[in-house]
Structures are given as structure tokens and as C-alpha cells.
């Protein structure tokens, strides 16, 4: 009996480790040769990525089948101890349960499909190998995030997703707009990452560990929170803050439409499917904390619904297809977060998976939109209708004009964030940096720097 249980656990552990190790091996297999100037050919690259994601996908499918047959028991896989100092031990734990197994199945499946699409789409593109290295990094990070058994491991996956997303937005590095969009996305991610890091600190402080097994009790979705109520509120609020950035919620949503500067395959998998829902996954995983902190749940509902309305209004005036799809993603991400805030768990999971599949398909098809439209027109014998929403016609003309103006300016979100958050911080830092330069110039007896500063100010 015991040996049967042990062998079952070994099987589950082997499958889970494969889902992490396969993309990791792909990443190393492509990255190291590229770093020493021996980048593999296009064919070898796509085959390596297909093998890595394919293996992970098969392992995930088997895990799903085994898990479904056994009612998704919680399987914790202890991969080892990273280091240990005094009473502090950093362990690497993965967890397979009713949340992580379906999610990793769909994420590795989507990665495999996008790899197949991108191999043709990016044929002979400069940076072909770079794209697939970043895709492998993303796949590895996403699987780590999903299968994480502790907040520390989840953070590691979270960071891999963030940096690969940033670098893929700036993939076409010769375009200034792509570079600016990538930097904007990274700054948003990084600011919101403070929430996840601080939440990790708070949780460690409260229960002495970041392992989910010690933070929550029971199996998802019925798990309960072991963090004391007084600590659960700040921890939940910090996690909500972290999720807002990755899921592009108001007031951190400005990066998402700009992120479409990246290649279409990465836009599909990042901003239509997986990266945009990383925040939702984080909150689903840490759902018991939200249950213990109703204020954080209601805040999430308000922000989610607000973002959904904002994105629906702004998205309706977009003149490019990828921009429109970005706002459509934002709308659904807002609704999903609102569902999580309401205390639902299975509904948002289903919503995430269904939305991700639909949206990534739409984004992958977007380069062929004109072709599709021509075919549709030919089939209909004329151009298809514009499809204006009947709801819009119910609004008074004055309100329609006002909404149109607001939508054109993206709800003034960027302007307000720039004016009230970014500009004061940047101005203060630049003033401090100038002060430092002038101080050194004065101390060194050189007037050059001070004169230059005055000249710049005069010119400004």
C-alpha cells in the first residue's frame, strides 16, 4: 500500500519536474550556444523548442489525466534545498493540484502552438533565435509560476515572465516606439513587483515560511488561510497591487496597447493569453488570503469593473486591430479579477482559459484580417456591416460625443499618471542628480558643469 502510494507520488513528481525541466533544457540548449556565437539554425531552433514544449505538454496531459482520475489530490514535490542559514531555509517546492494542473496543461499547449506558428511567421527574421530563446524563457517562467509551491518560487517564475515579456515587446529594437513601449511595460511591472516582494516579506514574517502548505490549509479551491487576520489584509492588498501591473488594470493599463509593438506570436501568447492572466493566477492561488481580507476583495471588484468599463469604451474607438484586441483583453482581464474579488474560484479559472484560447486565436489571425475580410465580402456579395453596438445608439448624442472624446484620449489615464505620478518623481530625481553634478563641480573647482547646467536651464 505504502509502496503503491510512493510510486504514485514518484510518478506525479516526475511528471511535474518534466514540465519545468523540459523548457529549462530548451532555454539552456539555445541560449548557451547563442552566447558563444554558435546560434543554431532556424530548423534546429524550432525543433528544439517544439521538443521542449511538446514534452512538457505531454507530461502535463498525463498529469491532468492522472489527477482527474484521482480527484486532483494535492501533490507537493520537494525539489531540494537551495540554501540554509540558521533557521531560514530556502526550499524549492512545486505543487500539483486542481488549479495548477489544468493551467499548466493549457499554458504548455498554447506555447507549443505558438511555437509552431512563429517558426513560419518569423522565417528569416533577424533575431529569429532570440525570439525562441525568449519564448523558452517565458515557457519556463510560466510553468514555474503555475506549479510554484511557495511564494519564492512563484516570484522566480513571475520575474522570468516579466523580463521575457519586456524583451519581446522591444524585439524590433530598431523601432523607437517598440523600445519606449518595452521600457514602459517593464517600469509598470517592476513597480507592481514591489507588491509581490513585499507580500512575500509580510507572509514570511507572519508564518515563518513562504511555502503554500504552511500559508494555506486544504486543497484548492476550498483552502483556508493560516495567516493571522491582521497580516492577511496588508498581504492581500499587496498581492492585489502586484496583480494590477501584470494584468494591465487601471491605473497601470497604459502599457498593454503599446505592448502590441512586439511580434504577433508573442502578443498572442503574452497579452492575449498567459502573461495578462498571470495576475489572475496569482490571486487564484492566494485566494484564501483574499477570503480573509474582504476589503482587498472589494477593492479588486471595483478596480476590475472599472478597468472593464474603461477598456470597453476606449477599445471601441481603436483604429488598429491589435489595439482593439488589447483593449478587449483588458476588458476580460478586468472582469476576471472582479470575479476573483467576489470570492469565485472555478468560474474565473474557466473564464481565463476560454478567454485566452479565443483571444490568442484572434491575435494570431490579425495579420490576415484584410484577407479574411476580402473572403467574407466575396462570400456575402458586399462588405460586411460595421456592427455598431445598439447600446451606443441608446445614449444621448451629447454623451456619445463626450465618451468619444474620453475614449480617444484613453480615458485620460496616461495623462493623469504622467502628470501626477511620473512627472513629480522624475523631476525630483533629475533635480537631485543635477545637484550632485553641481556639487562635485564646485568641490573640484570646475565651473564647467555648473555653467553647462545653467545653459541647459536657460535653453529650457
Amino acid at each position, binding site marked *: 500500500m505504502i509502496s503503491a502510494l510512493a510510486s504514485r507520488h514518484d510518478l506525479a513528481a516526475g511528471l511535474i519536474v518534466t514540465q519545468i525541466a523540459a523548457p529549462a533544457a530548451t532555454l539552456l540548449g539555445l541560449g548557451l550556444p547563442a*552566447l558563444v556565437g554558435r546560434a543554431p539554425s532556424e530548423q534546429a531552433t524550432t525543433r528544439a523548442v517544439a521538443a521542449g514544449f511538446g514534452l512538457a505538454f505531454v507530461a502535463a496531459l498525463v498529469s491532468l489525466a492522472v489527477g482527474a482520475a484521482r480527484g486532483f489530490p494535492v501533490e507537493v514535490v520537494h525539489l531540494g534545498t537551495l540554501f540554509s542559514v540558521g533557521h*531560514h531555509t530556502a526550499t524549492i517546492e512545486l505543487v500539483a493540484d486542481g488549479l495548477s494542473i489544468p493551467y499548466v496543461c493549457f499554458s504548455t499547449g498554447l506555447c507549443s502552438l505558438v511555437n509552431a506558428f512563429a517558426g513560419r511567421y518569423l522565417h528569416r527574421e533577424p533575431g529569429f533565435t532570440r525570439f525562441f530563446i525568449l519564448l523558452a524563457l517565458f515557457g519556463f517562467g510560466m510553468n514555474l509560476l503555475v506549479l510554484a509551491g511557495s511564494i519564492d518560487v512563484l516570484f522566480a517564475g513571475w520575474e522570468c515572465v516579466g523580463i521575457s515579456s519586456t524583451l519581446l515587446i522591444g524585439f524590433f529594437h530598431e523601432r523607437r516606439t517598440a523600445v519606449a513601449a518595452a521600457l514602459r511595460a517593464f517600469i509598470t511591472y517592476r513597480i507592481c513587483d514591489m507588491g509581490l516582494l513585499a507580500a512575500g516579506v509580510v507572509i514570511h514574517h507572519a508564518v515563518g515560511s513562504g511555502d503554500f502548505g504552511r500559508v494555506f490549509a486544504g486543497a484548492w479551491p476550498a483552502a483556508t488561510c493560516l495567516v493571522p487576520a491582521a497580516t492577511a489584509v496588508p498581504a492581500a492588498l499587496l498581492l492585489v497591487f502586484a496583480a494590477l501591473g501584470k494584468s494591465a488594470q487601471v491605473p497601470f493599463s497604459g502599457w498593454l496597447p503599446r505592448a502590441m509593438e512586439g511580434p504577433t506570436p508573442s502578443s498572442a501568447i503574452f497579452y492575449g493569453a498567459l502573461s495578462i492572466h498571470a495576475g489572475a493566477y496569482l490571486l487564484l492561488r492566494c485566494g484564501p488570503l483574499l477570503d480573509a481580507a474582504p476589503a482587498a476583495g472589494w477593492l479588486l471588484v471595483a478596480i476590475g469593473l472599472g478597468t472593464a468599463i474603461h477598456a470597453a469604451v476606449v477599445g471601441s474607438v481603436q483604429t488598429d486591430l491589435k489595439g482593439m484586441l488589447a483593449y478587449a483583453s483588458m476588458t476580460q482581464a478586468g472582469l476576471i479579477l472582479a470575479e476573483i474579488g467576489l470570492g469565485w474560484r472555478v468560474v474565473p479559472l474557466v473564464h481565463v482559459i476560454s478567454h485566452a484560447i479565443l483571444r490568442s486565436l484572434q491575435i494570431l489571425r490579425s495579420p490576415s484580417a484584410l484577407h479574411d475580410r476580402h473572403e467574407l465580402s466575396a462570400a456575402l456579395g458586399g462588405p460586411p456591416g460595421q456592427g455598431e453596438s445598439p447600446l451606443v445608439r441608446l445614449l444621448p448624442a451629447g454623451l456619445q460625443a463626450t465618451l468619444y472624446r474620453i475614449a480617444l484620449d484613453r480615458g485620460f489615464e496616461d495623462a493623469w499618471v504622467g502628470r501626477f505620478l511620473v512627472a513629480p518623481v522624475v523631476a525630483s530625481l533629475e533635480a537631485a542628480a543635477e545637484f550632485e553634478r553641481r556639487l562635485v563641480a564646485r568641490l573640484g573647482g570646475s565651473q564647467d558643469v555648473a555653467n553647462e547646467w545653467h545653459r541647459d536651464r536657460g535653453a529650457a
Partner: protein
Amino acid sequence: MNPLAAEPILDALTSHRLLAAAAAVATFAPLAGIAGAQLAGARLNPRLPAGWSLATSLAAALTLAWTWRSGPGHEVLLGPRLAGGSLVHLDGLTAILLPLVAIVALAITLVAPRRAATVGGATRLLAGASLTAAFMTTSHPAALVLLWVASLVPTWLSTRATPGGRPTARVYALMMGAGSVLFAVGVGLMAVDPPWADHAGPAGAAGGWMVTVAVMIRKGIVPFHSWYPAVFTAAPMSAALAATMPQVASYAAVRLLVGHADGVRAELVVLSQAALITAAYGAALAVVQRDVRGLVGTLALSQSAMVLAGLSGGLPMELCGALAVWVSSGLSLTGIGLVAWALESRAGALALDSPQGRFTDAPTLAAFFLLFGLASLGFPGTLSFVADDLIVAGSLGDQPHVGLLVIVATVFSGIAVVRGWFRIFGGPSTPDAPRHQILRRERLPLSLLLAVLFGLGLWPGPFVQSLEQVATSLLGPSRNAPAHSVPGDHP
């Protein structure tokens, strides 16, 4: 004597002699490199003798580290002693820092552009490496003062010799002169009236504060920080990196303050809080830098302050984290600085006001810059992730604000590094820009530095165990235990 009983003593003596010999080779090998460079003159590329001497120094330092780790793990004290210090003081801290000094100097020597590889430049670098290594093998007050002052000279000379560098050299001389006077007087007062003694008087307390301020000046801790990024802007990159990455002042703080924490508690509190503010402030300044040298300088300012913040925390785990940041920031910022230097040697000064479009020119250098940047900002899988985790976890009990300020510093550093990367490598490339791929002498040291950073990040167990041993011996009861001496030393 029973031969079986004598065997462990003989083993210990052998290992202590090996430690002393390795320390001597690590310290003096660069001087042989100076002799080689001077003798060869213009007939030989000075990179060659400098490189070989530093490779010898690195091999000796690694031998010392290996011997210390596999040996009994006691301190080795040799030569004259004064006020608890010894002329030669070899312990776990030395075993960690000597390889760092050697590898930083070796990487600088190999990556230095051809026009910077002069006899004078090599001499100053090797002299600085030798003096820094000597500083890190002693705890004798007089030796510390002498080497503190002497190790400042190569940087000052290099800055002064750089076109347009005289104003910064004056600032450097002003700050370091004040710091040196405070250090000398402070160490003297502490030697005469140790503040950790049972009946410590006001002289020792004043000495403790003077040493604290001297450490703050040399480390560039707020409000004495302005010279630090300026040196990166005005001095050759080699001089700036060699002067700042080994962190001489942190070593002095460990030997004179952290090692006697009971007597200088208030000084350590001031030091750690000021260092924390510096870590966050330096990282924030890095976000708005206009050129790559300013970026490297402000990042170094922030990271080196984080070392002191952890060192002064007073808990073994924080101390472990600080030692890990010491190594990780030293290696990663050396890497970033060297990549920036290699790019400058190809394309001139690199502004960060707008995208410079250098990716097409140097894609491999772009990859190295990014990887070193990630390795400096606590990215998972790198040593800095382990270091930040240790500092934050160590501070949770009594100073949770430390963890939060470290997070703020890490966030700003991350934004600064990625902004720098996109501004240097992003944007339209110039059609007639030089197309210089990475050179083999650049790729080798940069790969070595990266391998150490990622290797220790992915498999940190043994390294962290060594750090814990060092931290415990610095803070724990073993500090007061009699050190193991070998025959021939002079108590």
C-alpha cells in the same frame, strides 16, 4: 609525544603554512607583474605580464579559499599584534575576498581596450590590486592605516592623468584626505582605548565614530557620496572599478566595527541606516542618469551601500547576505562596467538621453550587459537573488524596514538597468557604425564572471555555508576564543 596525537597538529600546521603561502602569493604576484611590465617596456604588450601575474594571484587566492574551506576553519594570525589585530590575519573573510580582488583585476586587465593597456595603467592597476589584497589580509591597526592611504594613490593618479579628470581628482583627494585623517586618528584612538573593553573611555568612543565617518566617506555613504559616481565619470573605467569593487572600507568596517559590535553598537546603527538610505537613493539616481558611466557609478553606489547595510545589521543572516552582495555586486558591476568600456572603445561615449542603436553593432555585448544587469538586481537564479533573500530574511525579525528599503532599491536598480540597456542597444542603428564583434579576450573573462554569478546563484548551498561560517565567527562567541596560532608568530 604520541605520533597519532601529533598528526592533527601537523596537518593544521601544514594547512596554516599553505594558507600563509597562498596569501603571500596572491598579494605579491601583482608586484611581479609590475616588474615584468616595466622591464619589458615598449617591447611587450603590458597586458601579458599583468594578466599572468593576476592569474597567478587568482590561483593562489582560490587555493587559499579551498584550503580554508577544507581545513579546520580557524583564524590564522601571524606577525606583530596590536589592539586585537594581527599583521597577517587570515580567515573565512580573507578566503572570500582575495579571489574577488584577483578576479576583478584580472577581468579588467583582459577586457581593457588596447589604448588603455599601457605600462603606466597596468602598473597602477597591479599596485592597487596588491595593496588591496594586502589590506584584506591584515587586521593590525597600523597596517590598516598605511594600506588604507596607499591604496588610494593609484586611483588618484589615474583620475588625475585622465584628460579633464583633474577637478574630480581634486574632489577625490579632498574627500579621501579627510577620510584618511579621520581613519588614522580613529584607529589610533581605538587602539589606545578599545571601545569594546570593559572600562572603555571617551577616547575610544570618539575613535569609533571617526572610523565610522571614514568608512562612510570611502564607501560613498550619504551625505558623503557625491564623489563616487563622479569617479566613474572622470576616471578610466579600470581605475574606478578597481577602486570600488573590492570594497576596502567594508573590510575595515568588518575588522574594526562589526567584529567588535558590542562596543560600537550606536555607530553600527548609524552606519546601517545611512547605508540603507544610500542604497535606495543611489538606485533612484541611476534611473535618471544621462550617460552609461553615470549609470554604472550610481548602481555601484547603491549596491556597495547595501553591503554595508547588511554588515551593520548585526545578525548572522544579514551578515551572510551582506557578504553575498559583496561578491555578487562586485562581479556583476565589474561585468557591466567592462561591457560599457568595451562599447565605449568601439563607439565613443554612450549617452542615455535617447536610444543609441548599438544592438546591431554588438549583439553579444548586449547579451552580456543584460545578463550582468539581471545578475545585479536580484534576478532568480543569480547570486544577487540569494543575497537579497538573505538580507531581507535576516532583517525580518527586528528591522522589517530594511527589507522594504532593499526592495525599493532593487526595484529602482532594475528600472535603471533595463532603461540603460534599451537606451544603449535600442533604436535605429547608424548605417556607417563600426561592426566589431566581441573579442576573445573580452568573451573569456565576461563568461567567467557570468559563470560564477549564475553558478553560485543556482547552486548556492556550499557558498552560503561558508558565508555562514564567516558570519558566525565574526559575530558569535568564537570571536572571543583564542585564535589558533602557529609557531613563529609574535604575540
